[in-house]
């Protein structure tokens, strides 16, 4: 296995990139700056030839699992295939070389693309206004919650409570706090994995600003009490936020705007095929209904007879959350994807992803317990309680899966299922890959039945074995130059 750090390759005098020879007269830096403003010695960055830099990054890259290599069934992460045409088109100089302050008559193509993407996203989600600006899902949540703040503020009242089901992503409560809501109330789920209506009712009062729902929930279960929840929220003029992390299940089947939600974010890096990049960048457009439209962040792309422009003149806007118009590179990819799919392809995404998930669920239930028995959509949650009793936990199963060459599901989330394993196959995995995964999970169960102990040391074939995470936090080394 490759084990070098870039710093360990460095040798005095090696050059990785040749810069131009100055074509203007060169002055001493002291002519321009007082000594106190200059660096006393150059940063001790690596000195490595280009070839060695490339080899270094190629070698470390090979230590990664990635979706172009094999299955990646992380629940609620929607690790679908990232089409290559997206990457080609997003790297066209006509897009990449644009400066955000260029005059609009020199960026008409970019603005047209953004405008059309806005229209497509509105049509898919069933809302009437949208901003593309947020750079990620959690950033979108923040925007949605700031819009909700503004809604109540315009009605001259303060609301400080946000209701969040206990199956929600951690970003929901965290975003509520960053948006200035003082109270986050967790609502338990009922026996069918839905919001417990009785408990919800007991928390609905004049201090509630909104409820944040993920639909389908992180259990993969469609929240079918939506009409009742809407009525409850209406009784105190509270709003309904939808976390769009699981939009893949709804494409063309259900539009959140039609369901009665007031605001939602979409994750272009989940359902809309833009890659995850090892953690980002993402893109989290926020769509709203008429109640919240006037508060959307600026600028907004508008169309007129003179072409497309970025309009900033919205007096009730919450302002901006990004220095520029958001992650444009992701817009190109999502627009390309939707253009390829077209109106007939979009519903097929949901259909295939739901059928694939239910196929896995059916086959895996032969050996694993289900977190919930209710019908599930594009993802589902298994519980490894049975396996734990035999001596191997969800963590051990996840680590053992690595030896089979597939990435494990999301584990220990949602928090409400013991030994949770949350599985989302997406529509881009073939039946053969799904079968391979099932066979691996069944084989692991057999291993547990025979010798659960043996799994505690898994994985056996990965570049490194189980890592000491507690030790990393105790003896913190996050900077080579300080260790």
């Amino acid at each position, binding site marked *: 296995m490759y084990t070098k*750090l870039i710093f360990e390759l460095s040798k005095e005098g090696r050059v*990785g990139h040749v810069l131009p020879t*100055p*074509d*203007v007269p060169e002055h001493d*830096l002291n002519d321009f*700056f007082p000594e106190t*403003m*200059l660096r006393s010695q150059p*940063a001790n*960055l690596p000195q490595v030839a*280009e070839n060695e830099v490339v080899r270094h*990054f190629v070698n470390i890259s090979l*230590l990664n*699992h*990635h979706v172009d290599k094999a299955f990646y069934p992380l629940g609620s992460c929607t690790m679908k295939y990232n*089409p290559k*045409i997206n990457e080609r088109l997003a790297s066209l100089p006509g897009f990449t*070389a*644009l400066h955000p302050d260029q005059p609009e008559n020199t960026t008409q193509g970019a603005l047209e693309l953004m405008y059309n993407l806005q229209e497509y996203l509105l049509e898919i989600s069933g809302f009437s206004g949208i901003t593309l600006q947020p*750079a990620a899902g*959690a*950033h979108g949540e923040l925007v949605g919650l*700031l819009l909700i703040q503004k809604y109540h503020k315009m009605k001259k009242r303060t609301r400080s409570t946000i209701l969040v089901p206990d199956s929600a992503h*951690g970003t929901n409560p*965290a975003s509520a*706090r960053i948006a*200035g*809501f003082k109270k*986050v109330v967790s609502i338990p789920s009922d026996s069918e994995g839905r919001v417990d209506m009785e408990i919800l009712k007991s928390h609905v009062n004049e201090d509630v600003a909104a409820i944040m729902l993920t639909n389908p929930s992180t259990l993969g279960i*469609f929240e*079918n009490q939506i009409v009742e929840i809407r009525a409850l929220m209406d009784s105190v003029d509270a709003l309904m936020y939808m976390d769009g992390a699981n939009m893949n299940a709804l494409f063309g089947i259900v539009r959140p705007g039609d*369901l009665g939600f007031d605001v939602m974010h979409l994750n272009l890096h989940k359902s809309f095929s833009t890659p995850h*990049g*090892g953690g*980002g*960048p993402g893109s989290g457009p926020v769509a709203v209904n008429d109640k919240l439209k006037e508060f959307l962040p600026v600028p907004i792309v508008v169309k007129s007879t003179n072409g497309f422009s970025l309009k900033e003149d919205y007096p009730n806007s919450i*302002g*901006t959350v990004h*220095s520029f118009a958001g992650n*444009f590179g992701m817009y190109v990819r999502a*627009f390309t994807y939707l253009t*390829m*799919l*077209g*109106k007939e392809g*979009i519903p097929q*995404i949901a*259909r295939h992803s739901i059928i694939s998930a239910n196929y896995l669920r059916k*086959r895996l239930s032969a050996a694993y317990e289900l977190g919930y028995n209710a*019908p599930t*959509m594009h993802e589902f949650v298994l519980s490894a309680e049975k396996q734990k009793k035999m001596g191997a936990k969800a963590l051990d199963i996840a680590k053992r899966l690595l030896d089979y060459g597939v990435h494990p599901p999301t584990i220990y*989330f949602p928090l409400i299922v013991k030994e949770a394993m949350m599985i989302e196959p997406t529509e881009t995995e073939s039946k053969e890959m799904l079968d391979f995964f099932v066979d691996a999970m069944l084989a692991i169960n057999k291993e547990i039945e025979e010798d659960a102990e043996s799994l505690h040391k898994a994985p056996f074939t990965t570049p490194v074995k189980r*890592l*000491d*995470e507690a*030790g*990393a936090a105790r003896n*913190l080394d*996050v900077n080579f130059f300080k260790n």
Partner: protein
Amino acid sequence: MAYLSNSEQDIKAMLDVIGVKDLDALIPNIADNLKFKGELSIPAAKSEFETDKLVSGLASKNHNFVSFLGGGSYDHYVPAAVEEIVSRPEFYTSYTPYQPEVSQGTLQAMYEFQSMICELNGMDVTNASMYEAGSALAEAILLAVSHTRMNKVLLPSTLNPRYKAVVQTYVENSEIELVEIAETGFIMDENDLEGKFTDDVAAVIVQHPNYYGFLENIENIVELNENKKALIIQVYDPISLGILKTPGGFGVDIAIAEGQVLGNPQNYGGPYVGLFSVTEKLVRKMPGRLAGITTDTEGKRGFVLTLQTREQHIRREKATSNICSNSGLLTISAGAYLSLLGKQGMERVAQLCVQKAHYLAERLSTIKGVSLASEAPFFKEFTIKLPINAAEVIKKSLHHNMFAGINLAKSGHPNHLLIAVTEKRTREELDLFVSVLADILK
């Protein structure tokens, strides 16, 4: 149909195993009246070739002129090797490295990125990214307020107005009070700063080089804080640190930057990458992901995400931030860029920017009615005073296929133009700028 891996026969086989007839049988709990009926109003599916043609057509409607635009996004050269590295699917099609045994590539790259940024800016710890500089600055302010338990934040008018706007949105519903520090001669007004820098200040923001391109007196700010408890937050330009004194060297507490300049294209404003660095004492309060070194069960060196108890997926409403997805991939390009340019290259690229910017500033100042807005030192960006509105100059320079710079009218300086010069601008282009401007002002 694009991107579906299964045929209708496969689907039929799977439905048979599940024991249902069709999709509807799998979603019985979605009431019929909640379902979307009819057809989406989106164009019909296109082939890859047709899509390529359509989207390429949009790209070609945009114009790429010789650019002197800056203000937070800069036209630096991106080496081919950076593009090649960042285009590896091992990096771009992987998820957040939650399973470290199969994510050592991403984790090691994060660790190297963190280390190189710290070596460049002289800070102790850098996280492996925020979305971009404006929101990173907002998060830095939230950190400072939570750390000092005070609410007043001094924000200079020499700060990039786009960053300021983002900060305002973030703090709108909090107790945080933003107090503006006025400017004199395009740098922070020191008297105003001294007057407002009371003991209850949580943070002082300073952009250096500032929005207008000029250097601020950071030493003075740090000195003023000697007997106070505020955190000093510097916004810097990573390229400038090839030659300029570092935030760590000045002794600031938090350093924020836009990392786009490190090997990432301008992309019409995003994706960018916020660089977030702190001193050791703040590490457990910082937002975002951190990769750290550890060992595996066989004693081999490896990397993991560390101090995760700060983060939302563990701490939920008590997390230091709500950030989850970040700009991970751009830390790979920044790491590759810093590795390629290395010790000499970073100094060299900074030198080229300085020399070319000063050459242009000097030549422009010879035009009648044109002068540098300040005598303060500047790095690669500077502001000039014009005898006419900057808007007119910008408009007319388009006829010469040139983006002359940023109009400072919104900052209250309608006759001032903000000009950025990177290492990519040739002498020919600089001379052309001079003659175009002379011509416009004739």
